[in-house]
């Protein structure tokens, strides 16, 4: 039994978690949901009493099976952590030692628990990995396999408390589903109280018995998962549920010109002998929003970058308004370059950290005028013009990137996962801006996302990629609600949407 009572945490005097109380019975799963900055990771760290330097518990109690964790002296704390606590962090890759074979790392975890190293195979089997994985190094495993290994290490002992801090962020929907199913299956077997920290309310709802919603360091709502999801009481929970895009939700039906703006024919790109793009052909109409979906490694980012003229050389042709485009951006003339711009995935890397927002936008405009109008277009507050990117939130950075992409009055904007690094509520605002500006300017988007619901909300047409090929394409409504290709169906299932397969002519 885990009991958290009136817990408050502060970093160098600034309170980030306020008076949080909840309890979890053994064998039950508690979902802690909140956006970035809500204090959920801090709370998770406080549970294991490993707050980063500068952080301290200022009030409250944490009791695990009757023992007050906060009162333990250093030696007993170590013993308690070794015997009763297990933590799985966000990035599995950095939790594993790159110089040690997986088997050796698991054996070390077992040794600390006083178990024979022969149990490594058993441990791997528990997380559904073949025994030969023990002989591999972490970099030889996929992200999903790495996370399984970390979970296996966490299960080396008999933890009473298992903290999972965003265990699937950065993983594909398919892999994420596998990992979560694994945790679900092991839940009873482990018999520990499990805390699952996530920003995804719907996901937590599917997996947890109880849910707590954190907002600005306070637990604003708590209760059985089914109840919180179906009838949220706190306005924040309701907003969180509403802002998440859903497949099947109402979407604007827009008309667009059918004359193709950009055509891609027989595009091929390879890294060494691996074909990343294999004879890909695609057309984007004037004013059309084309959604590009697929798992990581499917070639969608390579395709988008090739359209923009970035990345490796290869075969195939790209035409813009019927005129052939050089494949490399360096060989395109200035007037053509202006017509295709891009919004990048990582808001931290896409803005020059040394410049103010005003400088960034002025340089993008070239002729200098109209910075304020450009900022307004992306719904960027004017007072943010004179700060540097490090002072901006993720959503604000992405708005600057969008403003920059519109600077040259382009015909096509390539959006490479523009909202995947953002919180759900911020994401909704940025998507709205993208949709509004498209309607106003008539620009076309090639919109890449691994989030099918986001694509459903925005795109007119959806292109599904797998293994460097386009496996299915068609109107968004048809592809995402009545997919035909097994890969698309699998993709939708993994994301928790049950597609209504072949629901044809029932009326």
């Amino acid at each position, binding site marked *: 039994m885990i009991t958290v009572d009136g817990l408050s945490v502060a970093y160098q005097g600034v309170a980030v978690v306020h008076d949080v109380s909840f309890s979890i019975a053994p064998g039950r799963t508690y979902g802690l949901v909140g956006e970035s900055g809500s204090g959920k990771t801090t709370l998770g760290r406080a549970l294991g009493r490993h707050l980063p330097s500068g952080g301290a518990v200022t009030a409250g109690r944490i009791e695990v099976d009757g023992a007050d964790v*906060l009162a333990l002296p250093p030696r007993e704390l170590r013993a308690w952590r070794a015997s009763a606590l297990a933590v799985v962090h966000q990035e599995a890759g950095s939790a594993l030692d790159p110089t040690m074979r997986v088997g050796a790392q698991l054996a070390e975890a077992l040794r600390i628990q006083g178990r024979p190293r022969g149990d490594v195979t058993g441990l791997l089997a528990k997380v559904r990995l073949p025994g030969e994985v023990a002989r591999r190094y972490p970099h030889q495993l996929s992200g999903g396999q790495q996370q399984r290994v970390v979970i296996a290490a966490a299960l080396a002992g008999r933890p009473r408390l298992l903290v999972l801090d965003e265990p699937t962020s950065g993983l594909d929907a398919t892999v994420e589903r596998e990992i979560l199913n694994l945790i679900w299956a092991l839940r009873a077997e482990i018999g520990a109280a499990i805390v699952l920290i996530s920003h995804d309310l719907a996901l937590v709802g599917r997996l947890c018995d109880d849910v707590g919603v954190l907002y600005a360091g306070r637990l604003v709502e708590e209760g059985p998962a089914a109840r919180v999801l179906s009838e949220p009481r706190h306005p924040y929970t309701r907003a969180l549920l509403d802002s998440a895009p859903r497949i099947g939700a109402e979407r604007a039906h827009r008309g667009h010109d059918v004359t193709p703006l950009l055509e891609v024919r027989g595009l091929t790109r390879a890294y060494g002998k691996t074909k990343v793009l294999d004879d890909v052909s695609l057309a984007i109409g004037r004013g059309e929003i084309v959604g590009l979906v697929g798992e990581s490694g499917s070639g969608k980012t390579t395709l988008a970058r090739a359209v923009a003229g970035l990345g490796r050389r290869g075969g195939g042709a790209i035409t813009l308004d019927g005129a052939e485009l050089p494949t490399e951006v360096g060989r395109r003339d200035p007037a053509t370059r*202006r017509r295709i711009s891009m919004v990048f995935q990582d808001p931290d890397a*896409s803005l020059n950290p040394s410049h103010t927002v005003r400088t960034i936008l002025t340089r993008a405009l070239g002729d200098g005028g109209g910075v304020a109008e450009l900022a307004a277009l992306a719904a960027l507050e004017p007072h943010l013009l004179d700060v540097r990117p490090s002072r901006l939130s993720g959503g604000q950075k992405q708005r600057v990137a969008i403003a920059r992409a519109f600077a*040259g009055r382009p015909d096509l904007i390539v959006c490479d996962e523009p909202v995947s690094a953002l919180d759900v509520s911020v994401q909704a605002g940025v998507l709205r801006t993208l949709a509004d500006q498209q309607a106003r300017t008539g620009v076309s988007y090639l919109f890449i996302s691994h989030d099918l619901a986001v694509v459903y909300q925005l795109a007119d047409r959806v292109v599904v990629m797998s293994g460097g090929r386009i496996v299915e394409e068609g109107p968004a409504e048809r592809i995402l609600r009545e997919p035909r290709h097994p890969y698309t169906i699998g993709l939708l299932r993994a994301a928790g949407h049950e597609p209504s397969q072949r629901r044809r002519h029932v009326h």
Partner: protein
Amino acid sequence: MSAADATAVRAVTRTRGRFRVALSVGVALIAAWTVVAALWPALAPYDPEAQDPLARFLAPGGAHLLGTDQFGRDTFSRMLAGARPVLQVAPPATVLGVLLGTAIGLAAGTLGGLVDEIIMRVLDAVAIFPAVIATVLFVALAGRSVTVMVLVIAGAFTPIVARSVRAATLVEREKAYVEAVRLRGGSTVREILPNIGPTVLVEATSRFGDAIFAAATLSFLGLGQPPGSPDWGASVSDNRLWLTVAPWTVLAPALAIASLVVGIALTADALRGRREHA
């Protein structure tokens, strides 16, 4: 706040405090020697080149604070005067080497491909050539002068600076903000330059320390100032024969070199540390 957390907070504060102390000590040492180099005629008690046959090998104390050498010249005055030749050579050599290295490194990093390959192989060839031999050759051809020393030291530094600037440029070049510039066809160098500023700064301070050392080494080898004029490296070289008789004549210039190099190293360390812990 628990005891462990308090310790952590103290550790962070202590690290920051340590950088502050290192920076002020380092800057103070550099500033002191710069003042001495500029004003030594007013500060030195004796003419550093004046010989006094009756006052040879006097021990420190009395009229001569740090004693005298084999010709009866005042060690303290010579130490003060010796700051000038070093500080005439090291700063311009550092600036020239860093400027050249930054320009070459940026060019190699942004252009890439064959250009990068050629530039880096040429720099390898320059760096592999022993600096001492190059200097002897150069001095033999062009004669001893401050200009020759500056050029030789700057030439030795250029490949070192170019290499780190190129590495920093390669990291920045892959970032999306540079790709955004490539998409619209602007100058990528102009976008990258401010972001490799910290690398250039750290490189400059480290090279400054090396330049002091290099200048002293060259004069020790007799490739610097004309013989007889006060110079730290030359003083160590000339007086080392009398080390057992008059150790102060060697120790004073040696400690002067050391204090200036340490001052620069402390400054460089503090700047680098502040950047990493920021």
